[in-house]
């Protein structure tokens, strides 16, 4: 990841991120009402094993109800991703307005970053299988 001086496009992406984060929180009643109608995981139903996305709906619902620990137990990666999405959306425009640099996700990642990403993904999946989510 490279850090560079932000351009007009970076600011637009930051504002779009902020808009999406605010909308995602503002639509809380809609997510909570719709979650009850979503089907259960077909992969889990067929195999009895949790898929990497299992527990995401329950994690998001718990998060929207303010129960962070329960959300982390349902799906840690999805919970952290959702929290990062909202927090990043709020912070990104402020960060750029204060003169912060913009990250650039382009090019090949270092082996260390790739290893951390892969390990995090597999660890999350292992947790889901072990905890029987």
């Amino acid at each position: 990841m490279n850090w560079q001086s932000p351009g007009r496009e970076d600011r637009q992406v930051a504002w779009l991120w902020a808009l999406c984060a605010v909308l995602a929180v503002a639509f809380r009643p809609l997510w909570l009402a719709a979650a009850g109608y979503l089907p259960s995981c077909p992969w889990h139903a067929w195999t009895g094993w949790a898929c990497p996305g299992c527990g995401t709906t329950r994690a998001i619902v718990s998060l929207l109800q303010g129960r962070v620990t329960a959300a982390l137990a349902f799906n840690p990666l999805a919970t952290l991703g959702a929290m990062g999405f909202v927090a990043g959306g709020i912070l990104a425009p402020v960060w750029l307005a204060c003169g912060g640099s913009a990250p650039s996700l382009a090019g090949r990642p270092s082996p260390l970053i790739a290893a951390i990403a892969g390990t995090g993904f597999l660890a999350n999946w292992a947790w889901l299988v072990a905890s029987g989510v």
Partner: protein
Amino acid sequence: MSEQPPIEPGPLPPPPQPPGPPGLPWEEPSAGLGSIVPTALAFVTRPSSAYAQMSLTVDLIRPLAYFVACALAAACVSQLWGFLLYDTMIRIVRSLMGSQFERFEQFVHRPGALQIAFGLVITPLVILIALFIWSGIVHLTLTLLGGANRGFSATLRVMCYAQTSQLAVVFPLVGGLIGFVWRIVLEIIGLSQAHKTEPWKAALAIFLPMLLCCLCLILGAVAFGAAAAQALQNLK
């Protein structure tokens, strides 16, 4: 009468640059709403060259506005089909679900004018959130595969124009499925063009998140339209 001094030959002016490929009609500086139609036609008839024409420097508002326009048009057509073909759709769903349909029957109602109007406002906003999250997941995967040769905004632009596929909802009942497959094709073509990467990396960047993380989410998203509509009716 004075004589003019001889003009000394200066450096030759640079030769005129050959004109570059024309951009998308929607991205022209003076483009109006009418230019959405030829732009959509370009992505329908020749997606590869349309993505090659796509500017990676034009204001990001342009592709985002195109995305919202396509989402809104698709939502309008979907609502129209839902209203006109309500009985047919219910009959098909009932035959597919069998006795399980009775569990949901109490929540299923023909949408009223208020629900349709509310749905038309909410749908583009919900899809905008989905666009940003999906673009982020795909860009992250493409980066891990070493195929992201440009920044996140290039991926975002590709995803915006891939929304053209949602115009497939003009085909009632099967339009959603056609649009889903068509969208995948457009995204793969667009990513390989915008990031100048191999098509297999672009395809993996689309399919890996679907297979590893989002299988349930995608199946859920297919059901989400109906679920959200039912939830809205219960909220009224």
